[in-house]
């Protein structure tokens, strides 16, 4: 019960923040009713998807301070579980998604136990290693179609199919992911106020002090890692039904893992709004850069050069992210 209250209680944010958040929420809810390009719609859906990935990452990477660069593997597990179960057994999304989460979380416990004996760079590189190993494995595994991947044949189903999450128009997908989005925010709000949330933040500060306060550091990290995994896996399942065509290279690559971490870092790792702000900036940026620059003849790669440059600038100039800047300014004003 208290968890629910925690989830719904945003009172520790200043009025201004809540008003802005409310405005954005309303905008998101009514957006599809106004005329829009399909490009804008798909960008918004990507924004919501990546916000959720970022929120998940933020639990262990932001609040926990352990930089995880291997989240994509859980995206893959979630996406492929849903895709394979749909293809073979017509499994509804609402069943395959939880199963995907279960598989992902199980895997996360298996590798999490040894993984969290490491810290810092070593941990980060190890997460990359495990993710790439899994990706390599998926690329040769026949069950998941190897490097060719899996294609979901939408024609087999009568759209709109809420059970299997197959729709003709993006609008339906939009509202489904929007609900996930709001649920994710509520969950994160409850998380950062929960005992585990506090424990993590203490761990991030100073592990010895955390231990002296009775916190089992290793176990807290593993639990949080599992939560992050669940987020990513669930949305990965959605991703499969949305794009209907998945392969290891674009669901499990290192680039995606890094993108996820990037969203949260740019927006402000360790804060509630951070990943959302980060996604709000980076997703449209990436999409529009690609649109304007990527496809033009002879300009291959320019969009990513700009993208990379932006990452470099933010990392060097304001590593606490946008939200970090806001908080710094506020604190300065207070004193």
């Amino acid at each position, binding site marked *: 019960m208290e968890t629910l209250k925690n989830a719904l209680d945003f009172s520790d944010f200043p009025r201004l923040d809540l008003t802005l958040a409310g405005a954005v929420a309303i905008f998101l809810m009514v957006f599809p009713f106004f005329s829009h390009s399909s490009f804008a719609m798909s960008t918004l859906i990507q924004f919501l998807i990546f916000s959720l990935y970022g929120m998940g990452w933020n639990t262990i990477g932001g609040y926990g301070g352990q930089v995880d660069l291997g989240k994509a593997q859980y995206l893959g597990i979630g996406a492929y579980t849903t895709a394979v179960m749909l293809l073979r057994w017509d499994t509804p999304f609402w069943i395959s998604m939880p199963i995907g989460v279960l598989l992902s979380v199980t895997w996360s416990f298996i590798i999490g136990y040894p993984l969290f004996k490491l810290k810092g760079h070593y941990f980060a590189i190890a997460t990359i290693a495990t993710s790439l190993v899994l990706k390599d494995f998926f690329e040769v595994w026949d069950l998941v179609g190897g490097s060719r991947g899996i294609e979901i044949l939408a024609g087999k189903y009568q759209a709109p199919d809420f059970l299997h999450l197959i729709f003709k128009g993006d609008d339906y997908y939009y509202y489904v992911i929007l609900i996930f989005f709001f649920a994710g925010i509520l969950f994160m709000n409850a998380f950062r106020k929960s005992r585990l949330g506090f424990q993590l933040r203490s761990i991030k500060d100073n592990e010895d002090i955390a231990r002296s306060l009775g916190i089992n550091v290793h176990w807290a990290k593993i639990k949080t890692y599992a939560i992050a995994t669940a987020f990513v896996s669930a949305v990965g399942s959605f991703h499969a039904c949305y794009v209907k065509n998945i392969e290891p290279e674009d669901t499990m690559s290192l680039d995606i893992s890094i993108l996820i971490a990037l969203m949260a*870092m740019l927006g402000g790792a360790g804060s509630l709004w951070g990943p959302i702000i980060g996604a709000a900036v980076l997703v449209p940026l990436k999409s529009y850069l690609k649109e304007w620059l990527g496809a033009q003849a002879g300009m291959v790669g320019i969009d990513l050069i700009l993208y990379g440059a932006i990452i470099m600038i933010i990392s060097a100039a304001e590593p606490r992210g946008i939200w970090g800047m806001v908080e710094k300014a506020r604190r300065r004003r207070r004193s």
Partner: protein
Amino acid sequence: MEILAGSISAGLLIGMVFALVALGLTIIFGVMDIVNFAHGEFLMLGMYTALLTAQATGVDPLLTIPFAGLVGFLLGVICYLGFVKYLIRGPMVAQLLGTFGLMLVLRNLALFLFGSEDRTIHEGLLVGQSFDMGMGIILPATKLAAAVLSVISFIAVWLLINRTRIGKALMATALNAQGARYMGIPTERMNAFAWGLGGATVTMAGALLVNFWSVTPYVGLLFTMIAFAIVALGGFGSIPGAFFAGLIVGLITELPGIWDFATEMTGFDWMASVPMTSFKYTWVYLAYFLIMLIRPRGLFGWKH
């Protein structure tokens, strides 16, 4: 037996080249505790430098190595002074993501400038030649030269670090930057030098590599991961460690051959059906993981 000998010799040869690739990373990490995701892109740029210079000037590719080294040195120094210097002030997340951004920029710059097709060196003194040592050991001349030059480079760098003043200054900065500063060592310049040296060694490795490994703008990531594994195994900051770890990793990549040999020897048929070749680099990643768990300090590491 021949398969085994062939695999082992191939593994050792390639291992020496891998070791040179990793050398730069261990130097930079030893001095500055920063993990450079763009390391493989430096390699890639070294490869392109050597290739294009050879093609443009008609010079034998092996002679382009010093030039590639110079390019690498400058690149390293510029990256440090222009970017990394600011990066190290921030939290680790920012450092990792920052060098990742650098990786994206360098990779796509290469894509933009050079296009995405595979390119290899087709002409050169040693290209296509090899020495048959019997017993299944065949040593391609280019790989042999690369291995030899790698060993020479290692010795040179080791001498530089341990026998020259500037090398000692570098070590001092690595061990205790604050203390080094008190002793009058210009740590900023040492950092830049470390990046320059790291950059130079890896671009030279690239110049050697391109003689037998085709280059695309995407070739970097694989080598970055291999370099990480080698540095972890050998011990972050250890030069001899990087060398021996490189050999081990080289052997690991030849595991399919050794596996085949073992299959033949033991007669377990199921072994033949394991797609070892596809997993070649998986073993490297796994090796990294296992090493970090069992002996995080690596074989020779002094910094943890």
